[in-house]
């Protein structure tokens, strides 16, 4: 064994599937001088990988997760460590059969061959199933089981043989050293029971132990150890006589949240149905203290009895099998069930690669290695897994445990794309909450903030505008016809929108202009009082964000970004601050309140409570001014995301309620109504074809394809410039388009409404999914009604040959195809007020 090193370039802590795959990929990408540590023995150090069921169902509704899973399957296959046995999800309820239609839609989108089975067809594949308790199945032949320990071993050995890696098992990390930095502390070394390693970079890939290691550095990795129960039952002749590890497809009994997986002569029965059992990291025994491994905790049989009964219902012979091994296996849960990947926000060069399932392990290894190597990954855009997505109030144990407990039983659940959390609500509220409460606001959570989505007091507008309800419960869920009515009222009159959840940063100092010009695509050297709407790119030229910047002074800028993007954007802006004191960064979100007032009567309402002129000639579109409004000091910004004239109005958080009251009182004679985020974020935006970060805008696409490239390129250098210049020079292979659904009628004879949740593919007229020359699939990125146009619109990137207006295609929703027509493509996707005359009225 090599001598314990006192320095290294990179230390990876944790030799589970993630840490091992990460060092393998880092080595392939040219990293040397890597050290991999684990406190346990190899090849199974005792973490969650060691007791994983190791099977992979590739279909998921999330593109990001599917990208990681499919890449992982390719890696397992390439190493010869994958056994493709097929898998069937079985339904016991009609609701689940509906969900299978959604599964089929996702499978079609990602190109994963799958089909629906009748109970008899399920029985043909799994002869010992009780077909009378099921209604059908969703079959995916590419479901596989893998050898995650051997995969880890091979990945590790590859890096060792390349001379790039040293591995030390049975080595406990005692502390992480940091040194103070200009903006935040920076990693300096790892202290272990075998000595200290000075290093530039540390990656925490410790699964359930990650929060403890992060804390040593003063960082947070928001996850909690949680129990997943499983039992190995057998032997059974019917399995023994196959003489194979996996002769039958793996069965997921979706409505009981259980699975049955053959392991040679036995069956492994696992469950996500038991009560959430969460542990604190300090409750996990050490390797020495544990009767089995630290993450194979004592089985609490009472929690599993119900699942046994249900398993016997599905496969009667299971009842006679002996329970030879049963554990409360620990795995990692995060507040939103996604992994926590990427650079931590608190400590520079201190990375997280945690809360990852075996099915995503090798893909995550590659992704994090790319991220460390290139500044951002290429494999997929990990914005849903980026650890920076969590705000401070989402990183504490109360939040992590409450949300994890809430979603644990949804692991196999049917989760609506618009589903809202029940726990930990009202933690972050704006100053007008008492007012919006009184108006019957129905709140959606936006980055932790309570944001009115529609207002029950606007019920009367439904009849006024003749808005029809939706027939299917799924389409109606977490939706209200009030939203479309609010939309039309705003177009006719005026609406006030609570935008308290906006994320607001300010940068100032002598270096502010140069800094901000370096960060974003568009020229920031505008006049004081001017604004810039601009893409923010990754080094590869894909979207990192899009946001609005106001120039407050020659050396002061305000950055305004969305509630769902603030964490990642703050990380990125702070991370790129110059290494000197010429620029100060301040997060002012909690100090400022934003209200929006839009509609043809907006200027009249606001003019009635100010002595300032709001006329277009005195206050042009895209500019901002300080205005005393209803006696409240504000900054008004003439801009619109909804397509009507009006303003975003900023004031101090302490004045928010007074400002709301002043506007509402003034609005009484102008029929002002409160308008929810469904109008602001979807219907108003869609009619104007405005893009949304995380939907249309992601790292896979560039500004040329999104129709956001300006005619000129600024002289100053900026992140992603080289790639941006290159993208402009080549003909784009796809463009963002707006399409209308020409007929929403489903086979059952009523109208259905696509969700725009990212998993609905655009199909050719012959029913094939559409993939561009870069391998990107055309899918719905946003969908919603356009009440002013009496249309239902969707946004999607299409290969250039499909972009012509009038092109007819189809969209797949709940496994049924609906006809769509391309309405616009390019930079101006507005179908309502196409020239923008209303906004500048």
């Amino acid at each position, binding site marked *: *064994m090599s001598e314990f090193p006192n320095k290294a370039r990179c230390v990876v802590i944790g030799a589970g599937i993630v840490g091992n795959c990460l060092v393998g990929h880092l080595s392939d990408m040219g990293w040397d001088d890597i050290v991999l540590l684990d406190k346990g023995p190899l090849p199974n150090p005792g973490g969650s990988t060691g007791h994983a069921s190791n099977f992979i169902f590739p279909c998921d509704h999330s593109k990001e997760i599917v990208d990681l899973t499919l890449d992982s399957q390719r890696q397992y296959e390439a190493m010869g460590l994958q056994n493709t046995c097929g898998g069937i999800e079985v339904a016991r309820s009609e609701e689940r059969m509906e969900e299978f239609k959604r599964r089929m839609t996702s499978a079609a989108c990602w190109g994963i061959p799958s089909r629906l089975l009748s109970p008899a067809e399920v029985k043909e594949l799994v002869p010992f199933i009780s077909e009378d308790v099921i209604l059908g199945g969703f079959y995916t032949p590419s479901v596989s089981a893998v050898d995650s320990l051997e995969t880890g071993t091979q990945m590790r050995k590859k890096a060792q043989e390349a001379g790039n890696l040293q591995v030390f098992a049975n080595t406990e990390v005692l502390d992480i050293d940091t040194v103070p930095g200009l903006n935040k502390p920076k990693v300096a070394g790892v202290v272990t029971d075998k000595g200290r390693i000075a290093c530039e970079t540390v990656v925490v890939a410790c699964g359930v132990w990650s929060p403890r290691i992060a804390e040593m550095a003063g960082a947070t990795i928001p996850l909690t150890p949680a129990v997943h129960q499983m039992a190995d*039952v057998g032997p059974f002749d019917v399995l023994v006589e196959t003489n194979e590890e996996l002769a039958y497809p793996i069965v997921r009994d979706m409505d009981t949240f259980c699975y049955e997986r053959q392991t040679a002569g036995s069956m492994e029965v696992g469950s996500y149905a038991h009560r959430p059992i969460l542990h604190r990291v300090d*409750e*996990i*025994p*050490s*390797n*020495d*203290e*544990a*009767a*089995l491994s630290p993450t194979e*905790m*004592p*089985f609490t*049989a009472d929690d599993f*009895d119900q699942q*046994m*009964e249900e*398993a*016997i219902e599905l496969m009667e012979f*299971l*009842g*006679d*099998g*002996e*329970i*030879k091994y049963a554990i409360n296996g620990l795995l990692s849960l995060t507040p939103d069930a996604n992994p926590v990947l990427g650079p931590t926000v608190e400590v520079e060069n201190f990375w997280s690669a945690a809360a990852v399932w075996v099915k995503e392990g090798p893909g995550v290894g590659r992704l994090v290695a790319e991220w460390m190597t290139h500044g951002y990954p290429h494999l997929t855009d990990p914005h849903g897994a980026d650890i920076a997505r969590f705000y401070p109030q989402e990183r504490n144990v109360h939040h992590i445990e409450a949300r994890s407990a809430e979603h644990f039983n949804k692991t196999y659940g049917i989760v609506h794309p618009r589903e809202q959390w029940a726990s930990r609500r009202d933690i972050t509220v704006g100053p007008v909450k008492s007012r919006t409460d009184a108006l019957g606001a129905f709140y959606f959570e936006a980055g932790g903030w309570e944001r009115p989505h529609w207002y029950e007091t606007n019920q009367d507008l439904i009849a006024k505008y003749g808005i029809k309800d939706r027939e299917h419960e799924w389409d109606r869920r977490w939706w209200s016809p009030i939203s479309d009515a609010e939309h039309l009222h705003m177009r006719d009159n005026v609406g006030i929108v609570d935008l308290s959840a906006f994320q607001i940063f300010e940068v100032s100092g002598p270096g502010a202009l140069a800094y901000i010009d370096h960060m974003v695509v568009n020229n920031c050297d505008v006049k004081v009082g001017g604004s810039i709407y601009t893409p923010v790119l990754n080094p590869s030229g894909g979207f990192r964000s899009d946001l609005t910047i106001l120039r407050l002074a020659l050396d002061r800028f305000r950055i305004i970004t969305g509630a769902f993007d603030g964490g990642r954007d703050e990380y990125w802006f702070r991370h790129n601050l110059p290494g000197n004191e010429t620029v100060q960064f301040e997060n002012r979100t909690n100090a400022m309140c934003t209200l929006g007032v839009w509609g043809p009567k907006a200027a009249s309402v606001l003019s009635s409570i100010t002595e300032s002129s709001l006329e277009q000639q005195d206050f042009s579109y895209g500019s901002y001014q300080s205005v005393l409004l209803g006696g409240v000091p504000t900054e008004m910004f003439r801009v619109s995301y909804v397509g009507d004239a009006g303003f975003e109005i900023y004031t101090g958080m302490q004045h928010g309620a007074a400002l709301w009251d002043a506007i509402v009182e003034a609005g009484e004679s102008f029929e002002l109504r409160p308008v929810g985020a469904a109008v602001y974020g979807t219907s108003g935006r869609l009619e104007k074809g405005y893009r949304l970060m995380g939907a249309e805008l992601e790292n896979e696409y560039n500004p040329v394809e999104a129709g956001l490239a300006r005619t000129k390129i600024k002289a100053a250098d900026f992140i992603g410039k080289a790639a941006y210049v290159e993208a402009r020079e080549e003909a784009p292979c796809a463009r963002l388009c707006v399409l209308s659904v020409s007929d929403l009628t489903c086979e059952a004879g009523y109208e259905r409404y696509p969700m725009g949740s990212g998993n609905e593919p655009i199909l050719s007229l012959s029913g094939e999914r559409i993939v561009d020359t870069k391998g990107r699939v055309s899918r719905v990125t946003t969908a919603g009604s356009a009440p002013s146009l009496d249309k239902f619109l969707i946004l999607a990137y299409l290969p250039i040959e499909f972009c012509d207006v009038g092109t007819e295609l189809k969209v797949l929703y709940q496994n049924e195809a609906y006809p769509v027509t391309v309405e616009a493509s390019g930079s101006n996707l507005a179908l309502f007020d196409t020239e923008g005359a209303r906004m500048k009225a």
Partner: protein
Amino acid sequence: MEILVCVKRVPAPGSRINVTQDGLAVDTSNLGFTTSPHEECAVEEAVRIVEEHGGSVTVLTLGSALSEEQLRYAASVGANKFVLVETDGEHDSDAQQTAEAIRETVISLEASHGIFDLILFGNESADSSGYQVGIRVAVSLDRPMVNGIKNIDVGDTQITAHREVDNGYEVYSLKAPAVFGIKEGINLPRYPTMKGRLASKKAEISTISASASVASQQRVRLHRPEEETVETTILGNDATAAVKIADLLEELDLL
């Protein structure tokens, strides 16, 4: 055959056993609980005897209400009747208290149930290893008792039991009623089936309060001995290790 098996709920620890801060107990905060392995074999042996010869297996334990878990486990592997002699769970009973409580319970059970042909104990408990309770109960009931039993044959009139000694067995022939201390290895206990586990939930447990006798022994403090560190030398990871292994075997006079 009417058989009584006495079992004890004990922690299932890893290689390192932690002691609570006051030193009076094993720290069980992360531990599961099990039946002492010798007793698990005793339950299995009783179930097998009854499966072959008829009768019933009664399982008795002395402990807190939590010990019900061990009785239900016995139910899940085929035992028939269950008695919990319930203590307050605050203090471990010493061997004399335990034996006395069991003696009283046996007398009371036999008054209504008839004499147990066999009473089986584990050779010793997995936690305190006192080797006393079975013998004390047998003596107090004036019944023959043999410890270390690795085989039982039930004949028409005689019960033959093997006790393991160096290089062989001692063979005992007894008449019922008798008491045995069973040793692990007598059989390979079955695991519960899922059906067995589910049925065990419905098993009826008779609960009797343990008499409040005063312990003659008191635990002062548990002490964890210094861990022996074992040095491991890796002789190699490939074929070259073979020579070193041969050298080592020679050095140890094994070749």
